[in-house]
Structure formats: structure tokens, C-alpha cells
């Protein structure tokens, strides 16, 4: 029985009027197998869309092959990636998928006998075993039963920390470690979550977010003093007052250093943060949020440049006496980006 279904008649929304979907479907069919990969990176694939039926390709993340066929079909809305003969679809946005070596910022959700469970914005809570942290007391030593009893003195529920993904389990869960003086408890600062924009995958589609890069944690020189910025790959950001860590005093021996830091390593008390430094911390946090809202990638270079221009603009405003930019993080960052791009 031939049935034709009429589309809704009053086309009130202009975006509904163009018929490009049916066009692109035909293109797909016509193009055949030679250049199916939509060499124009502008279009995205959607769930259920056939990517190829050529058996020479292998399926990667975000695709599936129905039983008894060789057709590779997308399961996500996102862009197609080709790695040699491997086809995968990177979603436009998704929860953070941990990878070994990622620097992440997390929050302790619960404390168990020998480990902490940490929210890193992934599908499952990550675990941080007691054996994977630096124990205080100077020298590197084995953990003892006393440490197990005192587990809450290191981290307790709600604490923020920066860690590295050490291992991925079979089921997709992650184990973290903080076995470096760069890692550990976070304090004296401001936590920002870039919700929904986490994950390195987000960057490749230009939807903004933190990029996996060489330096995720760095120090920024501001007018009010130095501040530390930790860009977690999972989209959690921590901006804080600068503390002296191993990286700054390379000449001191490692054991000596541990001694010097150990008292403050697991402290839950904030130091005194001067008011103008707090202001700069908030400014950096807002700028980073604005960058994501403008669909920009967040890395060290971008943050530093934005910060410089922001300070410059504020100075100009003070001189001229009028406010150039609108309200909100997004519009401020838009203006900054304009200025950076025009090369002023």
C-alpha cells in the first residue's frame, strides 16, 4: 500500500524549510564507496547513518555492524574520523572518557577501607587506592595499617584533588594516582566545571573544552601575584594561589623536598589569600568559562593571551571611563577574541 506522509504544512520555522537532509542522503548514495568519508568536514553523521558497506574498513568507537552484514553504521551524532583503516565517530559532546596519562581534577565522593572513590565526570567513579598517594613522613615508605585507619586525614568526602589516570579497568573504570608532587589536594582557589564540554574529543569538533596538551598545569604571572591553573582533561578546572612545588626548586634533593611539603600536603586549611589575588583568580576562572562558551579550545597559550588582553582592556576602560563590553563571560571573551584576532 503506497502511503505518502505529508510534512507539517505551516513551515513556521525557517530552518525547517531547506531540504538539505534529503539532498545529502542522495549524495551519500551516489558517492559510493570511494569518497564516502564526507571529505567535507562540515557535515556530521547521525545515529543509524550508514558510513560504508565496504568490508575493507574496520569499525571503531561510535559505530556498529548489524549482525550478518558488513555495513558500518554510526551510533552517535558526531564527526567521522579515519585512522588508517579504522573508522570511528567522535560525538559532538559526551561524558569524559578517561585515558591513561590524563591529568584530571576530581572530587572525593566516598571513602572506603583502602581507597577513595573520585568523581571525575566519567561514566563511573574513579578509584584512588591508598597505595597510589604520597604518604607524609618524609621518605618514600610502605603504607601501614595506621595509614588505613587514618585514611580520612588524607582526603575526606568533598575534597578536591588533581591526579593522573594510572590504569583503565576492563569495565571502563579508571584508577588514579597522585604519586608526584604536582598532584594532590587542591586548596586556596576556585573550582570551575565546564559541564558537558569535557574530554579531548570535544576539541576536535571545535566545540570548545580542555585539550590534551603538554602542559595542563601552569603558573600565571598576574599583577597581584602568581596563580596556579590546573586544566583537568575531564573539564574540571582549578585556579588557585601559587604554592611552591618541586618544579620550582630543582636543585633541592627529592627527599628533602618531601619533608618540606609534607606538613601542608594534606592540609584542609586555606592560606590567607589577598583580596586582589582572589580577584585575579575569579577573572581567570570566568575567562576560561567564556572561552568554552565561545566554542574555543582551552590551553595554556589561549588562557595566557586572554588574560593579558583582559587586563589591558580593563585598564583602557578605567582610563576612558566607559564600559565597552556587554555583560557575562561570553560577551567579554568574544570581545577579547576579536581583539586578539585583529592583532591589536
Amino acid at each position, binding site marked *: 500500500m503506497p502511503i505518502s506522509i505529508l510534512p507539517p504544512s505551516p513551515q513556521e520555522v525557517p530552518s525547517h524549510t531547506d531540504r538539505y537532509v534529503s539532498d545529502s542522503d542522495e549524495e551519500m548514495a551516489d558517492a559510493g564507496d570511494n569518497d564516502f568519508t564526507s571529505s567535507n568536514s562540515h557535515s556530521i553523521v547521525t545515529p*543509524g547513518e550508514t558510513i560504508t558497506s565496504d568490508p575493507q574498513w574496520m569499525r571503531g568507537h561510535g559505530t556498529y555492524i548489524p549482525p550478518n552484514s558488513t555495513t558500518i553504521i554510526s551510533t552517535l551524532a558526531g564527526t567521522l574520523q579515519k585512522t588508517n583503516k579504522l573508522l570511528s565517530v567522535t560525538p*559532538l559532546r559526551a561524558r569524559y572518557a578517561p585515558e591513561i596519562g590524563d591529568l584530571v581534577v576530581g572530587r572525593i565522593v566516598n571513602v572506603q577501607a583502602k581507597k577513595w572513590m573520585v568523581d571525575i565526570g566519567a561514566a563511573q567513579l574513579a578509584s584512588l587506592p591508598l597505595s597510589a598517594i604520597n604518604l607524609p613522613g618524609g621518605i618514600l615508605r610502605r603504607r601501614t595499617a595506621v595509614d588505613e585507619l587514618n585514611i580520612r586525614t588524607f582526603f575526606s568526602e568533598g575534597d578536591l584533588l588533581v591526579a593522573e589516570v594510572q590504569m583503565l579497568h576492563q569495565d571502563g573504570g579508571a584508577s588514579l594516582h597522585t604519586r608526584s608532587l604536582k598532584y594532590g589536594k587542591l586548596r586556596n582557589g576556585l573550582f570551575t566545571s565546564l559541564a558537558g564540554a569535557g574530554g579531548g574529543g570535544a576539541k576536535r569538533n571545535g566545540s570548545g573544552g580542555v585539550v590534551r596538551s603538554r602542559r595542563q598545569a601552569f603558573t600565571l604571572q598576574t599583577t597581584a601575584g602568581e596563580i596556579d591553573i590546573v586544566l583537568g582533561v575531564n573539564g574540571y578546572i582549578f585556579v588557585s594561589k601559587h604554592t611552591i612545588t618541586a618544579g620550582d626548586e630543582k636543585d633541592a634533593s627529592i627527599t628533602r623536598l618531601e619533608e618540606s611539603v609534607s606538613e601542608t600536603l594534606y592540609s584542609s586549611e586555606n592560606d590567607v589569600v589577598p583580596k586582589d589575588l582572589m580577584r585575579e583568580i575569579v577573572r581567570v576562572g570566568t575567562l576560561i568559562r567564556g572561552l568554552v562558551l565561545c566554542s574555543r579550545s582551552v590551553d595554556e597559550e589561549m588562557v595566557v593571551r586572554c588574560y593579558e588582553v583582559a587586563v589591558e582592556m580593563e585598564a583602557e576602560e578605567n582610563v576612558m571611563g566607559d564600559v565597552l563590553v556587554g555583560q557575562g563571560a561570553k560577551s567579554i571573551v568574544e570581545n577579547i577574541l576579536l581583539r586578539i584576532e585583529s592583532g591589536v
Partner: protein
Amino acid sequence: MPLDTSTYSLALLRLDGRRWNELRRLHAQISTQAAADGSSYLEMGNTKVLCTVSGPHEGKAGGAGGGPRSTQAKIEVEISFAGFSGVERKKRQAKDKRTSEMSHTLTQSLAALLLTHLYPHSTITIHLSILSQDGSLLAACINAATLALIDAGIPMTDYLCACTTAAPPTSAETEAGGDPLLDLNGQEEQELPFLTVATVGKGHAVSVLIMESRVRMEKVEGMLAVGVEGCKRVREILDKVVKEHGKRFA
């Protein structure tokens, strides 16, 4: 019968001026709520639904209660009605059977649609807020949930799209009746026997089929055929919404 359909057989135009095979305006947006992992807003005529998805995240119950099922993500669906969604403003009970049946339908159909085995020990929570009801409520919920899940980046085999069809109103002169009606509004739902059908993908793969009223067996075939075609059209519209959204990132 609360309404008069006697004019239908004359002009073959429905109460709101549509033909038998015409959908209502279907407007949808995705990524509407910043706080959720995925969200959508969908209008089918005057039926308006807001859907948010959070997850996959670690379930509340934790490992112990998961049992053998925990090799797959668990899907939870909550449906809430706004007090102003219906004709009468009334406070609904927290859990009536009709609502739990709807959430059961969504849970079951999405469990088969999503590749849940990729997220063991996790929970995917879907929350639907019904802002306005005017027929095809379950269908609108299914379509909204599909969009929100796509936005959340949760892998699925294909779109799950739904619509409603009704058996044609029989008039005195044509006992056999005309063509089945597609995409019912609230008034038509009150009056005609109808079914809700949801299909996966472009084919005839029926995932959900719910009919609540008495109808001759012979009529089901026609209703189903129109419903499946309607779902295909809905899929095209939803796909366009997703592609349009994707263009922004290109």
C-alpha cells in the same frame, strides 16, 4: 461522543484543518539545558516536552545491588507533569499507574536501543517534563528522549521515532471509513480509537506499539502502515534537527 466529526466525511479535513496524512508542526531543539549531559525540547503541535539526560554516571545503589545486570547500564526514566500542562489545573499524584506505564515503556524501548553494554555499573537517568499536553504524549516523550540521548553522546543503533494513528471516523454513507488519521491532537484522541507506534530506523522495525481502545482487527493493519510511514517522516525531521545542530560546530 463529546465532539462532532460528521463534517470530516464531507471535506476530508480534520478539526484543525489537516488532511489525514499530515503531521502537526514538529519543532525540536537540542542542548537546551546547560546543566544536563544531554537535553532536548520538543513540540508536536501543542504537546510540549522537555527532556534532560544525565549520565551515564555511577548509580546510587552502587555495586552490591547491581547484581548480574550490572554488565549493562541501567536506564531510569522519570516523568513529571507540570500543573498547567492539562486543561484543568490539578495536582497529579506522584506515581499513578499510567505514568509508570509510560516510563516502563520508555525504559524498555531504550534499553534495547542504546548500546548499554558499553557502560557497565552505570546509570542513565532520563527526566521528562511535560509542559503541555495535546495528544500524542507518549510519542512526543519518545522523540524527545531520543534527541536528548543523542545530545548526551550515548551510542544507539538508530533513531527511535514515534507517532500516533487513529482508525478513521466511520460515517453513515461509507461504512468502511476512509484513511487512518495521523498524529492526533487531544480532541481526536478523546474520540477515536488510536495507537502509538515507535520504530527504530527507516524500516518496519517496530519497537513500541500501544493501543488502548477497541477497534476492528482489520483496521489495525491500515493504522499500523500509516504509523510506520509517519515514524519515517518524524525521523527525517529529527535527523535534520541534529544535523542543523551539528553545523554549528563545523
